[in-house]
């Protein structure tokens, strides 16, 4: 039995169904992120696990106990907020020790645990500081220590890095993941940043309009998106509506081009319209190595992104992106040049609408 079970949970606010039939089992020690655009229900789901919202229907079971109706201050849950939410009137040590004080632990016990937590977040010297004397990244680390001080069963993180600048965001997310692994704590991480979700989760739940679109490892989510929404939301994607040319042979027609796909098209008929997608990094110039598909194209635009060069090509009537790794000896084509691009048949995905 899974450690945290979310069963058929829905949440209705007035006439809006914020979360629809959410089902998820989370194993002990697993870090699962909820990924989706704002208003997709990810935060509402998290808040139901925390106890700040009550599900309209369904059950939440933690460690074998039904906690659906349990008030938040009785749950063994630690929470980290986007806005840090440190108590401004207390020192760092006071903040970290707050929950322990509520639990009526002895002063000695509190001091010891606070020191342990300060060491965990690499801020041993900061116990006497006040929150306003800390940077955003430091405040969020203190908030993390505060949430972990009570050794909760589950750690909930609600967009914890959204208020920080890019550099700190990357280093802190690695730190959060390291701490989570070290303590072996079960965690749910809510984010709208796909890179964040892919880089630190064991599993990602992609959500849209209150519904779960896909659940899977970051690898699966990125490489084998099941729906058009997931494909578009996670990473950059080329999509085009194409016609089925030959269901048995896996052939698709895009304008005057024929593409070979590894997808099973047996249930389709010739002439059916389907949504086809190819990741930009799966395309390459045919001059180097020819794969299953070799397609004529025109160079439309070239964007230099540092480690990657993104080239926009016209295939038939559609514009596709193609990513190629940068190197100082790269010979870039000129705008308007005729060329050929290639990709394997596995790169040509057919998405469910």
């Amino acid at each position, binding site marked *: 039995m899974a450690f945290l079970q979310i069963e058929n949970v829905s949440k209705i606010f007035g006439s809006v169904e914020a979360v629809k039939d959410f089902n998820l089992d989370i194993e002990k020690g697993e870090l699962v992120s909820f990924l989706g655009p704002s208003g997709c229900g990810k935060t509402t789901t998290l808040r139901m696990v*925390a*106890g*700040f919202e009550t599900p309209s229907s369904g059950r939440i079971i933690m460690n074998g106990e039904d906690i659906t109706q349990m*008030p*938040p*201050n*009785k*749950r063994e*849950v*630690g*929470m980290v*907020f986007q*806005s840090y*939410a*440190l*108590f*401004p*009137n207390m020192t760092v040590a006071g903040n970290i020790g*707050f*929950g322990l004080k*509520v*639990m009526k632990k002895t002063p000695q016990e509190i001091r010891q645990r606070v020191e342990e937590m300060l060491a965990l977040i690499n801020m041993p010297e900061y116990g006497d500081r*006040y929150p*306003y004397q800390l940077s955003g990244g430091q405040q969020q680390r203190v*908030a993390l220590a*505060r*949430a972990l001080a*009570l050794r909760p069963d589950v750690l*909930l993180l609600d967009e914890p890095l959204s208020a920080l600048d890019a550099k700190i965001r990357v280093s802190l997310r690695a730190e959060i993941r390291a701490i989570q692994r070290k303590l072996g704590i079960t965690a749910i991480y809510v984010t709208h940043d796909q890179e964040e979700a892919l880089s630190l989760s064991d599993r990602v739940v992609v959500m849209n309009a209150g519904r779960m679109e896909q659940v899977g490892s970051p690898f699966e989510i990125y490489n084998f998106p099941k729906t058009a929404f997931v494909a578009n939301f996670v990473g950059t994607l080329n999509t085009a509506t194409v016609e089925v040319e030959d269901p048995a042979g896996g052939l698709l027609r895009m304008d005057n081009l024929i593409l070979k796909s590894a997808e099973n098209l047996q249930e389709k008929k010739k002439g059916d319209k389907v949504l086809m997608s190819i990741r930009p990094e799966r395309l390459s110039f045919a001059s180097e190595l020819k794969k299953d598909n070799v397609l004529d194209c025109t160079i439309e635009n070239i964007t230099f992104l540092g480690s990657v060069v993104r080239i926009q090509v016209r295939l038939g009537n559609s514009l596709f992106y193609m990513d190629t790794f940068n190197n100082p000896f790269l010979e870039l084509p000129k705008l308007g040049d005729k060329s050929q691009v290639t990709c394997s048949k596995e790169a040509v995905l057919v998405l469910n609408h």
Partner: protein
Amino acid sequence: MKKVNIWAWIILLIGIVYFFLPLVATLEFSMRMIKGRYTFEAYRVAFTDPKFFLNFGYSVLWALLTIFFSTVLVVPTAYWVHWKLPKARPFVEFVTLMPFVVPAVVLTFGLIRLYGRPPILLLGSPILLIAGYIVLSLPYMFRAVDTGLRAIDVRTLTEAALSLGAGWVTILTQVIFPNLRVAILSGVFLTFAIVMGEFTFASLLAWPAFGPYMEEIGSMRAYTPQALSVVSFLLTWASIGLLQWIGRGRGQEQVAGAH
């Protein structure tokens, strides 16, 4: 540029004269009790009157009681409105503005009519007086606390405390009250100043207080009441000064303004 500066100064000057001239005149008059000399004789007379201390003491007592009950009433209410019922805020704000809409005389007569006869008889106890003062203090108290609550993220702080296992009493006393310290104090000092100078309630409900005493003295003597008004002004300023001084401390906090 220079022209604008001159005008700004002129306007400021007019404001200062408008505000301070009556005060200076009062002060000057209060010091002329003995002909031909400036003395503090009027103040000596005022302060040696035992009735002064009695009435002043009563007013301080009423003020402290009002402050206590008003704080206990307003802080949890404003907090709850911020946390659970943000939609009710305009309504609550409207209710607190009552004393600006309903004159004190009307309010007092209403209280006397309602509680002066069975089934509820409250005329003999100071409850009516304190209740009336609480109503008078509402606009200042509520707005001060409301401003303070806006400055902190009530909802997230409450949720953070809840997720750490805290109950409502702990959250109010250890998280909300300390972070509203300056805001509450600003409401407290304003309430103090208002109650100390209040006349209508105390007079109509026949309780001893500083306001009616001043009025009584004013109808009998010439110089002492002027001295007393100067004293009462100083008292108000001392309250405001104290408030500024307490609010100065930590850089992040701001003095919640009276409107």
